[in-house]
């Protein structure tokens, strides 16, 4: 087996070690590469930026712990932007761990801007058969979620959801909600909000997605169904820059850059091995 034949058949453990090393180096010693802002992120930012103080943003945490590293920075950035603009925030979770993951993130930004739970934001949590609950919330949030938030506090005790408050958020429709943002890693997710809420009531909506879901979602951006999109970890870094949020995603993008270069290098080596090995054999 000559050198080029070996290049076609590199032990996968070597590949794994190299990927591990480049990502670790990027985390320990960030490169600080400049990040160009993509159009979809700008569109999403401008959609939220166009809201007025007191408008309501509906956030959905449709993801699980596995996607935290990509989506948590987006939650931080969007929550930062929302509270900075004095928007009201209502959080729900289509996935059964999403509410636990986003709670400390939104709490952190709320504290930073002096926002009070129950007055400026509420976490409705997760409910079994979440899609059915989503549909039911269009006609009344209280009944749909059993009248309590994620902590069991009656919604009537939270000013943002109290029916006696004329500015309370009582239904998931255009009368009460001005923008929907879905932090999504799969299904159910933004498409379900689009189908049952956004299109029905003409409410702007945009997803914050893991990178693998971006190619499939671009069709909806082009058709105008989504008012922008936050694409992956890089999108999180972009939105953090636009919103002035703490730059927690930047380190990850450096690891992404070096990892991409390493994979490309292996692909090139493999192909050189394939072509030159074949040529030698001929």
């Amino acid at each position, binding site marked *: 087996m000559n050198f080029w034949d070996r290049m076609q058949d590199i032990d*996968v453990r070597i590949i794994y070690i190299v990927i591990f090393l480049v990502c670790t180096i990027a985390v320990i010693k960030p490169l600080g590469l400049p990040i160009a802002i993509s159009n979809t992120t700008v569109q999403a930012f401008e959609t939220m930026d166009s809201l007025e103080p007191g408008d309501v943003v509906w956030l959905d945490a449709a993801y*699980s712990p*596995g*996607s935290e590293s990509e989506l948590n920075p987006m939650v931080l950035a969007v929550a930062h932007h929302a509270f900075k603009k004095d928007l009201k925030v209502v959080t729900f979770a289509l996935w059964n761990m999403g509410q636990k993951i986003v709670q400390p993130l939104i709490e952190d930004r709320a504290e930073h801007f002096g926002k009070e739970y129950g007055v400026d934001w509420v976490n409705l949590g997760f409910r079994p058969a979440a899609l059915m609950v989503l549909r039911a919330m269009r006609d009344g949030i209280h009944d749909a979620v059993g009248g309590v938030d994620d902590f069991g506090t009656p919604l009537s005790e939270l000013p943002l959801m109290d029916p006696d408050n004329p500015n309370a958020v009582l239904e998931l429709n255009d009368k009460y909600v001005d923008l929907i943002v879905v932090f999504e*890693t*799969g*299904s159910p997710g933004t498409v379900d909000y689009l189908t049952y809420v956004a299109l029905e009531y003409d409410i702007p909506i945009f997803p914050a997605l893991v990178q*693998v*879901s971006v*190619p*499939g979602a671009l069709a909806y951006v082009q058709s105008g169904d989504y008012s922008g999109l936050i694409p992956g970890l890089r999108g999180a870094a972009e939105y953090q820059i636009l919103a002035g949020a703490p730059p927690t995603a930047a380190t990850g993008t450096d690891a992404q850059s070096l990892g991409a270069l390493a994979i490309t290098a292996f692909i090139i080596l493999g192909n050189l091995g394939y072509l030159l090995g074949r040529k030698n054999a001929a």
Partner: protein
Amino acid sequence: MLKGLFLMAEAAEELPSVLGIFIQSVFVQFILVLAFLGIVYMMIQRARAGLPVPEIRKIPGLDALDEAVGRATEMGRPVHITPGLGTVGAAETLAFYALLGHVAKLTAKYDTRLIQTNRNYLIYPIAEEIIRQAYLEAGRPDAFNADDVMWLSDWQWSYTAAVMGIFRAERPAANIMFGYFYAESMVLAEIGNQVGAIQVAGTTSTAQLPFFVAGCDYTLIGEEIYAASAYVSKEPVLTGTVVGQDWGKVFVFAMILVGTVIANFSETNIIKDILNGVW
């Protein structure tokens, strides 16, 4: 329901309607649904009556199923099949059931071990029944092993870790992944490669298709999985629906063409307005 009846008179005034019966905003969609239903039903009846119906083109991944099971038989190693993380009533899972029956009949015929893993506890008893039935129809009820049909976990990564363990222990020679998948698709495809399995995958999940294309020997893209059940079973019902949905596609393409032409000469989106009952 009774409350709804009571409110009927009041609510009826709020909803713009056609003839007071159909909701205006979705009336055109309803007509299209009926038209599509008619086409599909017509094709089903034609197929049943033995009349000429367009054939489904060759799908290499499906032709490879026989090869995959044969390879597993020769090597004396099992076949693994999974519906992924879809829900019990999802269209992809329904397509999986048909394929599962076909693969189970093959493994019964060749006396090859079939390991079927599930993430959804509702799919598990259905899959078990399908495989049992297939073995019965193949005349090998004794060969059916209920222990090889498993519900591993409801959680995505627990399920994936369990499948990885099964692959390391059992080393299947064929891995068939058919349904709706999420991020575990890459892990399953790669672990299949590491144990040297021939892999046939099919999913409608656009995010996972690239992983299957990179990691598997054969990949069925999107609607090909719906055609798969018709392709392997040759059932007239299934063939008829595939032909019907292709006619549906022709209609949609025609609408796209007309819409594109109109969009160049008009600022309004006439097609969207018509579909949404805005007239």
